[in-house]
């Protein structure tokens, strides 16, 4: 029996075998691979680990095929004459008849028995020609161009260009250094007319303010008359611009990219938790860019979030623990500050102490905060809700990055439910001491400065000097988002990891260390975890939702640990576009 089936299997041609799985056979540079039907040639080549240079193609955008950089040589079996059967070679494939002219790999899809050549004299000739055309009017101002170092025009001209120019005529002059929006600067001379920015603003940002004007060599990207590129997603156009035509005003001339160290982390400005890369040199953050994660933020992020890192280098950063003495704050050591924080609360009853944590705190910090509440035996434990208008793309209504995490770790339906009670307690004078972590409760939780002034003891931990800090008896400086390793749970229930890119300034510490120190000072039997991973390990053993997780298992893209029923609108839109075949995704 088995012999029989083997015989039939042998008789089956590769095309039939592939068709059973919905695949087609494609020969790429001499090697046959199977790829799904309908795959674009450029993606098929990517699967075969062959890079096809391209400018205009972007998997998240439609493919107009206007840069012509992705030219490859294609071949198909010759069409049989009427009545003639296709002939198959010994390997079961038909002989490929190569076309003597190129096709673009970004917009064409693969077919059965297709051949693609991504190298060879012919293909290299195509590319060299295209590169030469693209560079005809290029101003070659790489020394002043921010894109230098991550410019595909530079990269491909090295790899595929001819190295010297044959162009003797005058270059076309176009507008340079054009102010087209709050965050974006346009340089038309550098533009290679790939139209990625135009398509992005049209298809993803849904604010089509960009377009081409003029014709021929005078073609230039412009904003629509009377409009400006002020969309909150405008900076993504600078990211996807393969050259230096669109550059970020914020990052303009700040630092060359080759000096910057990339750290994969996540955004903490809203519940979505966009995946990002933080670019640092020394102990300074220079820019934040989105990182592709098709479950969270596709490849984009809002400008408001990516520009919010500047507070890390604010002059009002708290850099040293401080204790209030005779009405003024004095810098002190951590040991003294921690003991002062605990001393002040020792003589109070548990129901006189309230802890206000923040939805901006990480899972580990929230976990330790819960332990602190247990150690202080207080009921009053709450986060401060922070809501805003959702933009129905990536910014969620919940502006706390870890509300879901707080709910999971505190095992409550609503982590901010006790806030009302605490307010009552403060009004009635019952609450005499506050522990505030990562919040300015005067600004965001509705307490007045008088409320805080009447407190017997106020311990606050924050990264910036603010009204709460001013009223505090003990100030414990914390670490900003790029200054610590931490995990967060976003609104869809995805556990994500933030990584440390820089060190906290001065004597400031990572917040989990502060919390662990407070716990150690409160309870002699408490053994503080040695590291962040230790806190997470404890968290994963005690909270069932997190069980089985570790810092390593989260990975760069995070893992979904719960179903919250919330979706991210932009991801849904993208899924629909992939399904309809508009983009490859």
């Amino acid at each position, binding site marked *: 029996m088995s012999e029989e089936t083997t015989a039939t299997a042998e008789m089956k041609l590769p095309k039939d075998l592939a068709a059973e799985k919905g695949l087609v056979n494609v020969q790429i540079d001499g090697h046959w691979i199977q790829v799904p039907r309908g795959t674009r040639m450029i993606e098929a080549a990517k699967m075969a680990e062959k890079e096809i240079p391209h400018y205009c193609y972007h998997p998240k955008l439609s493919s107009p095929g206007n840069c012509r950089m992705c030219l490859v040589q294609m071949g198909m079996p010759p069409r049989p004459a009427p009545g003639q059967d296709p002939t198959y070679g010994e390997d079961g494939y038909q002989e490929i008849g190569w076309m003597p002219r190129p096709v673009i790999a970004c917009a064409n899809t693969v077919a059965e028995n297709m051949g693609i050549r991504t190298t060879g004299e012919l293909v290299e000739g195509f590319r060299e020609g295209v590169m030469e055309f693209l560079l005809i009017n290029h101003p*070659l*101002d*790489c*020394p*002043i161009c921010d894109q*230098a170092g991550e410019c595909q025009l530079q990269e491909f001209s090295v790899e595929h260009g001819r190295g010297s120019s044959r162009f003797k005529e005058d270059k076309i002059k176009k507008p*340079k*250094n054009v102010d087209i929006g709050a965050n974006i600067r346009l340089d038309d001379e550098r533009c290679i007319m790939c139209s990625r920015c135009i398509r992005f603003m049209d298809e993803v940002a849904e604010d089509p303010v960009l377009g081409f004007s003029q014709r021929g060599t005078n073609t230039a990207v412009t904003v629509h008359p009377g409009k400006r590129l002020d969309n909150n997603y405008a900076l993504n156009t600078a990211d996807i611009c393969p050259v230096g035509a669109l550059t970020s005003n914020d990052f*303009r*001339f*700040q*630092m*060359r990219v*080759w*000096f910057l160290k990339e750290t994969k982390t996540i955004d903490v400005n809203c519940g979505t938790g966009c995946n990002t890369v933080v670019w640092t040199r020394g102990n300074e953050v220079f820019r934040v860019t989105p990182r592709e994660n098709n479950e969270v933020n596709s490849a984009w992020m809002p400008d408001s979030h990516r520009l919010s890192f500047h507070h890390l280098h604010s002059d009002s950063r708290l850099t040293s623990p401080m204790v209030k003495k005779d009405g003024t704050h004095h810098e002190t050591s951590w040991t003294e500050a921690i003991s002062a924080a605990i001393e002040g609360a020792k003589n109070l009853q548990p129901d006189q102490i309230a802890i206000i944590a923040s939805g901006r705190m990480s899972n580990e910090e929230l976990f330790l905060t819960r332990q602190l509440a247990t150690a202080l035996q207080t009921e009053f434990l709450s986060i401060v809700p922070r809501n805003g208008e959702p933009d129905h793309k990536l910014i969620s209504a919940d502006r706390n990055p870890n509300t879901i995490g707080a709910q999971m770790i505190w095992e409550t339906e609503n982590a901010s439910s006790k806030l009302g009670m605490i307010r009552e307690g403060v009004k009635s004078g019952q609450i005499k001491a506050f522990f505030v972590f990562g919040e300015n409760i005067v600004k965001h939780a509705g307490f007045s400065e008088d409320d805080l002034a009447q407190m017997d003891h106020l311990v606050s931990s924050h990264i910036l000097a603010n009204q709460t800090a001013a009223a505090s008896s003990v100030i414990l400086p914390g670490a900003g988002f790029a200054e610590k390793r931490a995990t967060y749970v976003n609104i869809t229930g995805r556990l994500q990891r933030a990584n440390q890119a820089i060190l906290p300034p001065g004597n400031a510490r990572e917040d989990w260390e502060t919390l662990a120190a407070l716990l150690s000072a409160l309870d002699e039997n408490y053994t503080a975890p040695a590291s962040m991973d230790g806190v997470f390990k404890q968290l994963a053993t005690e909270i069932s939702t997190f069980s089985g997780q570790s810092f390593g298992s989260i990975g760069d893209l995070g893992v979904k640990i719960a179903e919250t029923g919330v979706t991210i609108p932009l991801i849904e839109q993208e899924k629909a576009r992939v399904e309809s075949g508009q983009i490859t995704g």
Partner: protein
Amino acid sequence: MATIKVTRPKLTAGEKIYFGSIFKGMIVTLKHAYRSLRGKSVGSKELASSGLGITMQYPEQKWDEHLPEYYRGVPALVTDEQDRERCVSCQLCEFICPPKAIKITPGEIPNKDEWAHVEKRPQSFDIDMIRCIYCGMCEEVCPEQAIYLRPDYVVTGNSRSDMVHDKERLYEIGGKRVGLVNKWNKLK
């Protein structure tokens, strides 16, 4: 693998005792010392000897007239014929500098400036001359022909901060260089 067999030379008894050679050697050394003492060492004339060995006595005597065209002294910034800062702060020198002696803070040229179309210039440009190893990589890498190793070699200071050449000092040393690239000045 070719193996070459080397036969040791046959030595005479005198050579084996090598006493004579040592004596001869000492005579050679003495002769050399005598020649050095008279300032007649080989190359003393070409090297402008002070009359003892081949060494020149700095600072009374200086090498300046003998400095070759290609002498690599202190690195300095130069301006073009229209007194424009050639440097556009591309930071390639900072990147290539092996001892990391160069520190540049790039800055934008304000719109009102005559050279606004250049867009970029260094806000500050510091070369730490304690670190500098005079390798000339910065000169080689500069796409704007803005940094040159000048024949100056007297770099002194009383403190570490004295030894850091700031932008002003660098232009002072560098001066003007004409007839180079004309990308920005529209002279072409």
